[in-house]
Structures are given as C-alpha cells and as structure tokens.
C-alpha cells in the first residue's frame, strides 16, 4: 500500500506542475542532450533555440503568432529521450519537435512522430535518420557521407592511396566508420588499418603504433572532443609525420585549445561557421552566419559551435515553413518543409524535397587546415 499512496502523491504533483501556456502561440518542442556525455551538442543547441525564440518574439513572432519553445533535456539517455518525446507529443501538444542531439535517440523516437503525425527536425547526422525517408522526419546537419567525400577528394588530389582510419566507438564514430569503409574502397583507395578507440579512452598511442606499422599515406580520425585531440597529441609524441585528417565533429576552437601545438597542419572538412571571417561577402550564408555569431556572442558571451548551428537551422527552417504556408499546423509544417529550396542556413544551403529530408550536399563543407592555432581555408 505504501507504493500506492506514493504513486498517487507523485501523479498529483506531476499534474499540478504542468505548465499553462498561451493558447495561440506556436508550440515548438525540443529535446537536446543538455547534460550527459553528449552535452557538448545539447548545450549550444538549447542555448541557440532559447536565444532565437526571444529574438523572434521580440520581433513580433511569425505570422503575428508568438513562438513558444519547450526544451527537454534527455541527459544523453535513450529512455529519458523517449519520455521527453511522449511528454511533448501527449502532454504538451506541440506541432513540431526539434532535436534530439544524438542519432541513436533520434532513431529511437522517430516512429512516434510518424504515428502522431508531428514533424521531427533532428539535429543528429546519421544517414539512417533520413534514409529511407520517413515523411515526418527531417534533419539539418551535414551528412557524414558529404564530409568523407570532401576528405577523399582532398586525399586524391594529394596523391594518397593507402589510408588508415581511427574511429571512436560511439554512435558518431560508428556512422563515420561505416561510411569510410564504404567510400574508401569505392574511391580507389586502399584501407590499410581500421582501428577503434573508446569514447573515454585517454591514450591512443597503441592504436597509432599499430597504424604506423601499416605505413599508410594518411590517417583519418573520426570522433568528437576530446578523443581526437588526444590522437593529435599522441601522433606528435610518437613522431608520426603521416598526414592526419579529422572529421567535422571537431570543427571548433575547443579542439585547437585541447590539441595545442599538435593541431598544426591537421586538415578537416568544416561548415562555414568555423571560419566566418573567411566567407566571402557575396556568399548566401554570409548574413546568416554573421547574425548568428553576433547574437550568440551577445546572449551568452561565448563562441558559437557548429552544433548550435544545427539547432539554428532547424528552427529557421521550421519558421520558414510556417511563414511560407501561413499555418502552424503539424501537417502543414511538414508539407511546407518539403517545399523549402535554396534556404541559406548556418550549416549550408537547404533544399528539401519528398525524397530528400536532409537538404544539404558537399558544398556545405569547406576543407580547412589548422595553422598557427587558427583555421585556414585550403580550397
């Protein structure tokens, strides 16, 4: 009986805690990994969304309607993510949801959105999210495929033929590893080593020593901070001079800080956000990038990250769909998202379609080299 009373008390408290929201506002739900291992994604995403909400509302909203963003933290945990999704769909009655931050969580909840017929605009990059296309599920980040293609183009131009890969054993690394394993042989390269490190590993010397034994022309490392910084440091410590490519997952100033001098000469594909100053003034993304960097600096006194950019674009795309279609109904937002073409965001220029729920291509990336502790465009 103790459990009985307890649960009843709990339910009552939960119910009374429910927010009461303005009835005519456009309700946008969001699920980000604000805490937990993936907080480096979720925190800038949450910040971005909150900032944009205030900005839009201050400017009078969309189509005369205010925007109400409800953000939940899934703590990088799939169970919490499912609960958050159910809460948004069943309790908060949102008309569109932005997020989650990580691919696994997105895959876990995407089917709830098809059955509830509410669009989900994910900030996670895995190809599985949009391929095959689920009518109700979109995403905004550049696909790994585009990043790998960029790297391989660069490698081909430099005349490399034997490649080694070193990937992290989490969702991000696994997705990258799968694409690398597919595209490296397909591009006429030879894959001479395929090594893995754990997300919490602090020393990759053993893997690099093994890779060294396979004498590749270049190494591609796929991971997010701090692992790749350790890889970069270990590479220098071992006296390895083999060129090292990184993925776009480390395209932030934090990486240069962590890797220190070892970051010198590393090459990676990155969104234009990483080197805003280097983007030509006539580029369609330029005004969006400038505005985002300035707003974020003003609101949080902190540098932007490309992950926050994914949330920025998701929000901008959703508002664009609402504006265009003149409706904030879930089904209309979905339909109008598919009609978006040539829309400049932070991460690239989006063109969605019934068969394309990612909307970006390789042109969303530029190849950058780290020189003197800062980013340089190499193409």
């Amino acid at each position, binding site marked *: *009986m*103790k*459990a*009985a009373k*307890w*649960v*009843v008390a*709990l*339910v009552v*408290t*939960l*119910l009374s*805690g429910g927010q009461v929201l303005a009835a005519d506002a456009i309700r946008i739900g969001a699920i980000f990994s*604000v*805490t937990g291992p993936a907080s480096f994604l979720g925190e800038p995403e949450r910040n971005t969304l909150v900032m944009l909400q205030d900005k839009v509302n201050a400017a009078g909203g969309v189509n005369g309607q205010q925007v109400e963003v409800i953000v*939940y*933290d899934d*703590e*990088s*945990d*799939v*169970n*919490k993510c*499912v*609960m958050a999704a*159910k*809460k948004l*769909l*069943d*309790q908060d009655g949102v008309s569109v949801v932005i997020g989650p931050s990580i*691919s*696994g969580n997105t*895959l*876990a909840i995407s*089917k709830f959105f098809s059955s509830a017929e509410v669009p989900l605009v994910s900030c996670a990059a*895995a190809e*599985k999210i949009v391929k095959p296309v689920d009518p109700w599920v979109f995403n905004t980040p550049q696909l790994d495929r585009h990043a790998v293609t960029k790297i391989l183009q660069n490698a081909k131009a430099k005349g490399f033929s034997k490649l080694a890969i070193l990937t992290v*054993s*989490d*969702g991000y*690394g*696994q*997705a990258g590893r*799968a694409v690398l394993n597919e595209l490296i042989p397909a591009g006429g390269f030879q894959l001479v080593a395929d090594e*893995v490190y754990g997300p919490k590993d602090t020393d990759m010397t053993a893997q690099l020593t093994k890779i060294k034994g396979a004498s590749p022309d270049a190494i591609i490392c796929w991971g997010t901070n701090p692992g790749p910084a350790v890889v970069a440091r270990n590479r220098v410590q071992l006296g390895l001079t083999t060129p090292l490519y990184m993925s776009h997952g480390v395209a932030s100033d934090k990486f240069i800080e962590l890797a220190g001098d070892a970051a010198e000469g590393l090459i990676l594909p990155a969104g234009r956000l990483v080197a805003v100053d280097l983007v030509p003034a006539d580029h369609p993304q330029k005004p969006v990038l400038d505005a985002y960097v300035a707003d974020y600096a003003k609101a949080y006194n902190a540098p932007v990250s490309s992950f926050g950019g994914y949330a920025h674009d998701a929000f901008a795309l959703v508002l664009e769909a609402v504006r265009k279609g003149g409706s904030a109904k879930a089904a209309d937002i979905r339909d109008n998202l598919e009609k978006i073409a040539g829309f400049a965001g932070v991460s690239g220029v989006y063109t969605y379609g019934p068969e394309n729920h990612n909307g970006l291509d390789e042109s969303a990336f530029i190849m950058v080299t780290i020189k003197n502790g800062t980013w340089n465009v190499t193409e």
Partner: protein
Amino acid sequence: MSYRKDMIWLGCFFVLLMLAPAALPNNYFLTILILGCLHSLNAVGLCLLVGHAGQISLGHAGFYGLAAYASAWLSATAGWPVEASMLAGVALTVAVSFLIGMPSLKLKGHYLAMATLGFGIILSILFTETVDITGGPSGFVGIPRLSFFGREVKKDLALYRVVAGVLCLAVWLAFNLLHSRIGRALRALHTSEKAAQAMGVDIARYKLFVFVLSAAFSAVAGVLYAHYLTFIAPSSFGFMFSVELIVMVVLGGMVSVPGAIVGAFFVTVLPEFLRAFENIEVVLFGAILILCMMFMPDGMAGGWNRLWARVRRAWAARGASGAAHG
C-alpha cells in the same frame, strides 16, 4: 511479514497498478509507469540475490541487455515470431547467467562484485562492437512491437497492463519462494555458510539458483523493454545501470520486495521531478541519495515500518487516554 500480509499487499499493488492509468492523463505517464515496472522487475530479482542470499551483482544490466538484444535480433533480423524470440532471449540469458555464475559465485564480497562487474562490461562491449548484429553504439532499430499470436499490442495501455501483470506474477513467485524452505536456505547461507552447509544446504547450488533466477527476472524485463520501445542501444545496459539497480534495492531496504519496487519507482521517477531544476538535477539526485541512506539506513521499507509503528503507538496512546477520559 507473514505470507498472508504479503499476499494482501500484492493484491492491493495489483489493483493499484491496474487503476493507475485511469488517473493519468496521457501516454507520457504510462511510459514512466512501464519503465518503473521494468526496473521493479529487475530490482525484485536483485532483492532475492543481494538482499536475501547476500550475493552482490554489478552485472545485471548485462543480462537485461543480453535478453533484449537476443530477442530483438531473433525477431527483427531472423524473422522469428515475437513470442518465440522473447522465450529464446530469456532462455539464452538464463544459460549465460548459469555459465557466468558457476565460476563467479565461488568468489566473495568485493571480488564477486568485480567478477560480475567484469562480465557486465564485457557484455556491454559486445553490444557496442558487434555492429553487424546489434547495430552498434547508435542502437538496434526496427524491433517489432510486443505481440501475442500475431496480434500486436498496439496501445501503450494494453502493453502496460501486460508489463504490470508480469511484474505482479514475478512478485508472487518471489513471495512464494521467500516463504518456502528455499527462501529460508538463502537467508541462512547469507548469515552463515558453514551452518547452512551443516544443515544440508548445497550452498553453491543455491547461490547459482538464485543468481540465475534473478538473471531470468532481468531477462524478462529486458525482452519486454525491447519489444515495448522497439529500439535499444548499448548505453542503456552499461555499468551505471547495474549500479542504479543496486541503488534501487538498497534504497528499498535490501530484504523487502515491496521496498525494492518502491526503490525502483523512486529512482525512475525522481529525475522526472528534478527535471525542472535543469543542471542542478544531478547534484540534487546525489544529495537525495545520500540523505536517504543517512536517514533511512534500513531503506524505505524500514522507514515506513518505523513510521507505521509510531503512528500505531500514537493511536494506541490516544485510544488509551480517550478511554481514561470516557
């Protein structure tokens, strides 16, 4: 507690579980309830193992995951019917726990904790690295939903009833066991292995039995979890979840089955309460855990018993003084 009292408790609990959804406005609460029931199932098994038989395990998240993955693979990849996959998933887990338990249970205390922890970690590495089978770190997608004889349990409410029913069944089995010669033997070997042996208890067999039984409870929870969520990822079955399960049992008071269930619901629901506090959530969770252990050293079951005894004393005192006045 007598068997009859336990049965009355179970009856009330069952009725409460069945009525609870009526008081809940939407599916979100059902999700919490379902997860609470699944965690309880794990905790009840561990209560038998840790609380009664005194054998620690930090590897049960591995069993939970193994059953979930086995059933997921059999039904989604090999195309087996869901019922058969679930049975096979539980059977496989039982077999694995048997093989793990045999050498491990010869170890004692912290060494046993380490051995089970090691097996749990090995299992979770397997979930992560065998990408072709498990889908790797980004998870296993497309698991069919729970179904019986070809009829899918579509509604969360129906699925919740199944899960709640299974939990009550498991609690019934646990109560039966605890009130039998086997339950006594488990408690006996907890206190004195020597004396238990001298009374004819084959302690190795009994430890293995309760270890496998608790793994089976976790396995049943695991297959239900997989076919409820239709998606699983290795991060749900890591070392921290094993620790969380032990926390549930200890918070509940170690030896009390109802306590373990309350502990499980507490640990499941508390973060939802704390969500409003955002970043401070983790700090609060840690603080609450410490305070609970400080002020309820014998767990929630113990805390409740003391409270109840005090209420009864107060009642009796009032009755007595009332009689004197009258």
